[in-house]
């Protein structure tokens, strides 16, 4: 063997040794294991599941995420009198809002425009009307309807303001979606590859550890407690809207209102939207739920790669 051949061989061998060593290391690691956190965020029963080869690191990360959840709760909570949202609703305006608040309102506006007001962040006065114990007087609804108008809401970094007195915002699902997005992105930022974040909305990071998409069951809107189908989800968010999710205390229907009539919407019994982000998915599913099947395509087209599974009251479903 000539010296130069021996040299080449040595180079090749060394070059090969590295990948082999890496493979060897990899095999000592075992499979990523799930670490799970459960709790409550923005009033919703919540969970985060994180897969990692290092469970200690994963649980530290989950623990840290709670600081972020707590911070966002202090902005978006409707129950806390001192939250940014509560102050906005009480005072009709707010100086120097947080970046998060402006971002959520911007997003709401985008979807509101795309859905021609079917999704409306200023729906809160209607909500409040229905939250009483009796069905609201139709005349009251008449009076409240003009207060539901997202175009009267200006949101800038310098300040947020309602155009009319007594308006109020309910960021409901979209805020939960925003929190879900933030957390999912932070987890990705921390270097995690696979996670399911359920903070009022569901978003998955990456794929399930076996390299298949996560399979998320959809509640059957007509048969409570049953699963009507499964959605494969990878690196995407799923938001399900439907009348069944919450019943109003006054018994007149569900939590989705038609801003045109002020009454519960009900043309579809369930809308599941799959979109890259939870906040978008939530706003779109709400909008489609209110606007009906016909408007679905137009609304979905505002977000590339968004799709939806619509379930009609008769139990049939379509995918758009």
């Amino acid at each position, binding site marked *: 063997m000539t010296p130069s051949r021996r*040299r080449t061989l*040595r*180079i090749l061998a*060394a*070059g090969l040794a*590295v990948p082999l060593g*890496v*493979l060897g290391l*990899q095999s000592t*690691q075992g499979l*990523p294991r799930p*670490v*799970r*956190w*459960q*709790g*409550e965020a*923005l*009033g*919703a*029963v919540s*969970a985060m599941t994180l897969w990692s*080869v*290092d469970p200690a*690191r994963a*649980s*530290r990360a*989950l*623990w*840290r995420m709670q*600081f*972020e959840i*707590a*911070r966002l709760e202090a902005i978006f909570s*409707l*129950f806390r009198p001192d939250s940014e949202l509560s102050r906005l609703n009480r005072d009709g305006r707010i100086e120097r809002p947080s*970046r998060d608040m402006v971002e959520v309102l911007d997003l709401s506006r985008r979807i509101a425009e795309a859905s021609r007001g079917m999704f409306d962040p200023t729906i809160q006065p209607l*909500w409040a009307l229905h939250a009483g114990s009796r069905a609201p007087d139709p005349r009251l609804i008449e009076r409240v309807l003009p207060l539901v108008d997202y175009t009267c809401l200006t949101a800038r970094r310098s300040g947020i303001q309602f155009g009319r007195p007594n308006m109020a915002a*309910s960021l*409901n699902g979209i805020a939960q979606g925003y929190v879900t997005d933030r957390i999912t992105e932070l987890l*990705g930022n*921390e*270097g995690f*590859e696979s996670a399911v974040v*359920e903070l*009022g909305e*569901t978003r998955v990071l990456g794929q399930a550890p076996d390299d298949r998409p996560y399979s*998320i*069951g959809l*509640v059957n*809107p007509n*048969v*409570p407690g049953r699963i009507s189908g499964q959605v494969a989800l990878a690196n995407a968010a*799923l938001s*399900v809207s439907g009348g*069944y*999710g*919450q*019943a109003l*205390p006054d018994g007149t229907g569900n939590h989705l209102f038609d801003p045109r009539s002020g009454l519960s919407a009900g043309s579809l019994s369930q809308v599941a939207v799959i979109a890259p982000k939870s906040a978008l998915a939530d706003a779109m599913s709400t909008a489609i739920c209110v606007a009906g099947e016909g408007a679905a395509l137009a609304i979905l087209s505002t977000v590339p790669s968004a799709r939806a599974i619509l379930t009609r009251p008769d139990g049939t479903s379509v995918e758009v």
Partner: protein
Amino acid sequence: MQTGTARSWLPRTWRLPGLLALALGAWLVGPTPIWAQGDARETPSLLDRLTPEVMSAVFPGITRLEMVKDDGPVAAAVYRREEKAGYVFSTLDVLRAPGYSSTPFDVVAGVTMDGRITGAVVLFHREPYLINDARRTALLVTFLQAIEGSEARLGAESGLPPDFVAGATISARAMRNAVQEGARMVLRYRTEEIVITEPTIDMINFKPMSQEQLVADGGLAFAHVTNAMLAEVMARAGVGDLLPEVPMSGGPDDTYINFVTGYANPPKVGRNGAGLEPFDELTNRWPTGTQGIFVATLGGVYDHRGTRYNNLSNGFLLDRVKVTQGQQDFSFTKADMIVTRGKIADILVLPPDSGFDPMQPWRADLFATAVRPDGKMERFVLAGLDYTLPDSMILMPEPDPPPVWVEPWADSMFDIAILATALALLTALLAFQAQLARQRRLHRWLRISFLVFTLVWIGWIASAQLSIVHLINYLKAPFVNLDLAFYLAEPLIVILAGYTAISLVLLGRGVFCGWLCPFGALQELLAQAARTLNLPQWTPSMPTQRVLWNGKYVALGVILLLTVVAPDAATVAEEVEPFKTAITSVFVRGLPFVAYAVVLLVIGLFVERAFCRFLCPLGAGLALLDRLHLFELIKRRPECGNPCQLCERSCPVKAIEPSGEVVTAECFQCLDCMVEYYDDRRCPPLAKLRKEQEQAAGFRPDLNSAGAYLRAQS
């Protein structure tokens, strides 16, 4: 709590279709509860939901139940034989959240008047989309069992640490918190909530306790005086040859007196000791602020009262008992005694302005008298009892919860200790680098060991690889209003980042890159192996290298720019850094990532630390900040660079200019050059000096002549 794993699906007609009705325990498996039938629009009233089965699980042993008619949180008062035992409430009623979502579960729970949870039952429960319930149901049962007996009032055990992850059910924590919060709300409205802001004597809690229990608990101080002890005390008092006023009876071991004393105001002491009536007199008939000292004689021939306190001539003075606190003495007269009938037990009262502080220790002296032959009385202390109010009688304010980030630090104490030791060692290595560099073998050995530690422990085991993501997070911190705790909760990273920041200012980028970066260590260890195997090494010329050096700044620039304009793209760009792949996930990642990392490592075999020098954005960030450093670690001589090129050649990463100048931004402070610098057989000026000295002395080589050179220089 009665538990079971059986479940029943509530009828479809239930008015909240879609709420996944999860009923735990046998009570719901039987007849369908009233409130689940029909399509009643109203939420069934609490009373309707409290079926006997539910009640027996939630608040066992009660005899009567009645709704509380006030404006407070909805609750039913429960009675045990006409004595109010507590409340039963439903989390749905009490905490119903008007807004985002109606409470997704209803837990009925009971709480006693003093804030103990007696039991809890889940009446319905809605699960979210991920399906997994057989396991969760079982876990939920165990979880709710753990609620029993937890305290609601003082929040002693409110909630689980948020870190509680492994496998509990999805709503369990929320439920548990809801139960405790609900209990607090129900109680706060009906019982006068005592907000304890400073340690307060427990004037509320009472439980029947025997004298023995009180003594054991510290509520009473106890003195047992035998005849023998009496004789001893008298001897010490100098009246040993006299007779006691009350003669002894029986042998030396028989009891002369058993005496107890204690602070009477806490009901545990006063009510148990003196009985209901005297205690009531103390608390209700004397002015507020009156303090009571409980004294009692439990046996023996002697007693603490005597008879003289009945005599006017004696001023009605109770001359057998005196209380002392600090410099202050307190004596009592007949008027100050609340006497217990049928027992030799009294409460001695101190007026509110007496200056007695029950929180401070005090002392009660029991006196006895000896009679001189001439009839004169000699008083002496028979027993002195020191008393300090026991902790069990003091309500402590709720401790301020420690800042949230403390927990991860406490949890990783052990890791922190390891890291701190390593950093201390590294600091020592750098501080004594001259001594270290003189020992070629030791330097080699220490360096390789430290790199192995950095790679294996810091990198793979503790996952504490500092990365560009951290740098960007820290830079972004002022703008993104993430909670400070968010950063603090990663102790090892915080420590490493702090150490790196300080070392950056003092010495330069090399302390981190050369010693603490796991990926850097991995490359360097591979390069060492490559050199051992004699693999060919590519060394770019200085001008080429200068161009290549800029590569990392470009990488950093692109990432920073993207962070601002397109955060999503920035996350992709950050992947230029193979740390996630090679270190934090130990190569358990998608093939493209692993392949990229492997390619970088293979290149590193032939070009020393190629990634570090030409591509690493974190290295670039540190190199930029490095411009500020205050001290030069790498020493130079006038001969360095001209004519000598020894250091330059020895530098594995070629961070020494041909002029002999060290480019600190590219120096990894591996100290290889310093080993040459101090080697008086290889460093030419040093070698020359050594030879001169040897010749002058006509002497064999002095192995430590580097020191001599330095001395000669200075």
